[in-house]
């Protein structure tokens, strides 16, 4: 049991965070009737998975890049851009729209990764710049309208049609991508390499990991995930929103961090990110059914993210360890002084 857990989540007390988050999510979901005054129904679970499908691929993309010790803020820009591209060029053939967005997203992600890997530029400033530029580009392509409507109602209905009562084609695609990523990272050496990249870049270079190629693939993959998420979200709403605001980034980062991804890199797993996303989404559902104001949601997720950023700060942990060590030495030194 313990070994299986360690295999799934990693070792150490901090690996228990995603598990705790998942348990909290389940408890929260089961206690939904407290907020709604009606028993749990099957569509509560359907809604939960729909909300998961909305942000899941952003948390996954963000989380994977952070595990490798990098950052990708541009996925929010790609998320918005791909929605507009998929809607505009997919009015008749939605699949072609997604394909076009996927090609553009992958090429962009790979180029960005190449830039970051080759020139060893810190990814935060670069992706901050591309995030701003992509948001602008999305608005330009969307003719500066707040949203671009999707006229293909059949596709919208198909994307949200219940499958097995609790899933929809959209949530199944997202779940499938999570499972695929988990399998690829678990069964090949890429999973270990991903953590190695984030844990110690220099050591992974010397030990023969093709760091540059992995980074290019990673940034392309995070963009691709954002493309799928963005196009499906646009199909689902029947419109692509040109300015997603900061909310997806807050939710994505919070989900990944709750899922046990370390902001300093080197730690985290797909299963953890899934658990983190589910707990975020459950909280969101509780707010929705209890009719909480949007500002309350913003406040809560802001505070959650703030807490996890503070916990993840490298020197916060060092300070804590130092404090504990000092207390320990002072207690062990005290009896010595008396004798």
């Amino acid at each position, binding site marked *: 049991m313990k070994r299986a857990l360690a295999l799934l989540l990693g070792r150490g007390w901090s690996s228990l965070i995603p598990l705790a988050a998942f348990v909290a999510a389940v408890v929260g979901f089961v206690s939904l009737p407290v907020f709604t005054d009606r028993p749990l129904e099957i569509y509560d679970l359907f809604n939960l998975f729909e909300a998961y499908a909305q942000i899941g691929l952003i948390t996954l993309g963000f989380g994977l890049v952070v595990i490798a010790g990098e*950052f990708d*803020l541009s996925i929010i820009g790609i998320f918005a851009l791909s929605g507009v591209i998929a809607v505009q060029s997919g009015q008749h053939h939605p699949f072609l729209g997604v394909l076009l967005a996927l090609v553009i997203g992958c090429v962009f992600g790979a180029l960005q990764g190449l*830039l970051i890997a080759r*020139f060893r*530029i*810190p990814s*935060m*400033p*670069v992706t*901050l*710049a*591309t*995030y*701003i*530029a*992509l*948001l*602008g*580009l*999305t*608005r*330009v*392509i*969307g003719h*500066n309208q707040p949203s671009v409507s999707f006229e293909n109602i059949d596709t919208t209905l198909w994307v949200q049609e219940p499958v097995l009562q609790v899933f929809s084609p959209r949530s199944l695609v997202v779940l499938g991508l999570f499972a695929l990523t988990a399998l690829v990272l678990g069964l090949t050496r890429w999973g270990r390499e991903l953590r190695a990249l984030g844990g110690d870049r220099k050591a992974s270079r010397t030990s023969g990991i093709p760091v540059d190629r992995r980074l290019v693939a990673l940034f392309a993959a995070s963009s691709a995930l954002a493309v799928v998420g963005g196009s499906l979200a646009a199909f689902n709403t029947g419109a692509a929103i*040109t*300015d997603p*605001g*900061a*909310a997806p*980034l*807050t939710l994505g*980062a*919070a989900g990944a961090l709750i899922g046990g991804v370390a*902001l300093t890199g080197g730690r985290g797993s797909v299963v953890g990110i899934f658990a983190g996303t589910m707990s975020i989404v459950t909280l969101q559902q509780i707010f929705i059914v209890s009719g909480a*104001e*949007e*500002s*309350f*949601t*913003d*406040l809560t*997720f*802001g*505070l959650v*993210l*703030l807490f996890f*950023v*503070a916990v*993840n*700060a*490298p*020197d*916060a942990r060092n*300070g804590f360890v130092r404090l504990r060590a000092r207390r320990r030495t002072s207690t062990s030194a005290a009896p010595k002084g008396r004798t």
Partner: protein
Amino acid sequence: MTRAAPEQSASVTVERNADDRLPGLLRTGLRDPGNWVLFAVLVVAIIVGASTPRFFTIENAKAICASTGTIGIAALGVTLIMVCGGLASLAVGETAAVSGMVFLTMLGHGLVPALLAATLAAAVVTGIQGWVIGAWRANPIILTIAVGSILTAVGARMSSTKAVAPASEAFEHLNKTPLGVPVVVFALLGLTVLVQLLMSGTRLGRLMYAVGENRAAAVAAGLPVAWTVACGFVVAGALMAISGAFSAASSHTITLEGANQLTFNAIAAVLAGGTSIAGGFGSATRTLFGALMIATISDLLLLRGAEVGTQTLVKGLLVLVVVLLGHVRSRRSRT
């Protein structure tokens, strides 16, 4: 950023001295790749400006100055954050908007108390972020995203029933145009001088450069790293609040809608001026020119009929170019 090894930096100083004998401010300016963007944009702006009707007019110059004011004051704050190694804040717009709301609601007590309340609130909130970043090395971008979300909630609460309205007419003092120039321009110039004095003339300023240049070395040398970064953020927060107060005064209300634009503009202005995003290098005067440049670009695009989308795209690309150039420069100084 890593410093050059001692023997290398010695040779660089010799080279600099030789170059300084050459006359011409332009030559000195052009030697620094950080200024290339500034010069390139200047040339492009003059060429495009000449072909744009109504660009070279007094009215337009005034409009550019006014928007340089609000962008520039917030950008001065971002300069301090960047120099002391705090990367950037993604909550600039939100901080400015919420403190603008505080300013408007406190106007009943007079102009100065309202300004003080707004700056104090922003200074405290931003200062705490600075302390967490300085002491614990928390990730500044993700931290300020979280704070942005919290401030959005606060701002939405403050303006939930209706848009925040000024409690008195005292704000009109901020809209005056003595000598035909908006007050905000004088404020920007005055604050630029003050921030420049703080950065290059005080112990705190030198500490900020030291911490931003190499945090590990600053820690090893026993410098008060956490307090230095916290102080930088305190002043930054106050500046964001002043920027918010001016934009609240000019439009008689303030919303969270344009928050992102101010954040992007401020970051773009600082980077365009040549301040390094890696920390330890930059100045307030650089930011003044950067803000002027961003305001001019926005104005040019607006006159040519481009909307928000194009403006954001151009600024994003500009930031990208500056970040890449800055990286090339820091690598060159290392080898």
